[in-house]
């Protein structure tokens, strides 16, 4: 009986604990000294932000030790600066493709800048600012491969990541293709090198990052026939409209004053690709 009573107490305590957590996150969104709500409000009050980024994508979001670097990271820093948060006060949180929506919905992160494609399905769960870059899905193959486009994938094995847009597109549009799924793209590369998969698929810019890594230099090539449009957005809590608009304003300013170009040149630009122009007319309406 004693044990049962302790269990009951523990259960009640747990229930209260959960309830407390919930009300906490509610307060974070609404209360506080300033009138601003959501992410903008949190940045003003705490001078801190938790930003979800990728940790295994060279050129975009790559973690070495405790440091993160890449184009996404630079974009995140620009936004944080615009919201009044120093780069040193950003807490980086590694996300993978499958946990970005849950992380935003549960408040684990304030923003997600992690090669995050804006699409209608995701818009029902989170809000998007941006896009800050437009990529396209492509294929990474061995240098001597004959695959020249997605039409030639029938019967071939393609590697991608569970829950990602590229994986879903292959599943739906190229049904004869076998799909090897992992939780990170980095696991696909040894398989491609050894020939167990015929191609790795995701956005061209990510693939280019992998192809240019020192240990794979000269072994892989990007096919160069993108078969989708992937506008990368900045994910934040649904209905945080004012923060979303504020972030879009920051992006506009960054495009105008050259910080966007500088972010590109210091990361992906090193591969020789000139900086794209950020088309500020295409920014989301945050609706």
């Amino acid at each position, binding site marked *: 009986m004693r044990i049962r009573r302790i269990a009951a107490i523990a259960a009640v305590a747990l229930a209260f604990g959960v309830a407390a957590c919930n009300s906490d996150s509610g307060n974070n969104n609404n209360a506080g000294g300033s009138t601003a709500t959501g992410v903008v409000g949190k940045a003003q009050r705490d001078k801190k932000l938790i930003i979800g980024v990728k940790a295994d994508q060279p050129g975009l979001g790559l973690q070495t030790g405790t440091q993160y670097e890449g184009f996404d990271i630079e974009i995140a820093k620009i936004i944080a600066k615009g919201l009044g948060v120093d780069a040193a006060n950003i807490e980086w949180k590694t996300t993978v493709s*499958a*946990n970005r929506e*849950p992380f935003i919905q549960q408040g684990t992160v304030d923003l997600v800048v992690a090669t995050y494609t804006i699409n209608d399905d995701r818009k029902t769960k989170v809000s998007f600012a941006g896009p800050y870059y437009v990529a396209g899905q492509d294929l990474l193959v061995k240098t001597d491969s004959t695959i020249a486009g997605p039409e030639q994938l029938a019967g071939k094995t393609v590697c991608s990541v569970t*829950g990602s847009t590229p994986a879903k597109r292959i599943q739906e549009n190229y049904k004869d293709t*076998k*799909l090897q799924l992992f*939780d990170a793209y980095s696991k696909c590369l*040894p398989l491609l090198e050894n020939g*167990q998969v015929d191609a790795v698929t995701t956005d061209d810019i990510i693939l280019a990052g992998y192809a240019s890594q020192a240990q794979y230099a000269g072994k892989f090539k990007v096919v160069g026939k993108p078969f989708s449009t992937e506008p990368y957005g900045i994910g934040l809590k649904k209905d945080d409209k004012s923060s979303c608009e504020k972030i879009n304003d920051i992006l506009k300013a960054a495009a105008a004053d050259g910080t966007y170009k500088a972010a590109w040149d210091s990361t992906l630009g090193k591969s020789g690709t000139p900086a794209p122009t950020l088309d500020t007319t295409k920014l989301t309406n945050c609706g």
Partner: protein
Amino acid sequence: MHVFFEQENLDAYLSGFFWILKLTGASAVLALGFGVLLAAMRVSPIPVLRGVGTAWVNIFRNTPLTLVIFFSFFGLFSTLGLEFSDELDTNQFWLGVVGLSAYTAAFVCEAFRSGINTVPPGQAEAARAVGLTFAQTLRIVVLPQAGRAVIAPLGSVLIALCKNSTIVGTIGLLESSNIMKQLINDNGDAVIEIFLVFAGTFAVVLIPTGYVFGWLANKLAVRR
């Protein structure tokens, strides 16, 4: 519960647990056979066999299962070219079974070895006195009694194996933990519900399993 009322999600849920069932079944059979063999090696009079048995147990019992499964996939398959099937999932399944069995066999071996210690030394001495060889002594006299003594611990090993089989998800097999991730990703508003259903399914299957093994252990125990 709305998530599991959709046919597509329900199918995914069932297929995920079907993989778990198959992984557990196949690995349990292989691990039991191999584990008994390892136990026999560890009590054998031949030093080389004892050494191999001890080394196997110490290596696999002290290596994280994730690494064992990873080695199965990236070592045996990707680097050494061991391929069981052209079908991706069948291949992942058998590579997973190889890893799970190699790992679980170490625990089965140790359970049996402890069982062998419960058999009074007089039994083996008597067997030798009537002229049985080591193999005969083990097969006819010692192992049957040892096996009946270790049913309860083997039940724990089986339960652990069933839960461990979710780790095969790391090499891409769409078993229950990957299906759970997928469902959570598609239904971010029902995370707790999905989690509880998956955890609950394991509990509903495994708690009775524990009781069945407890009951069996009692019923089959050697009365001395």
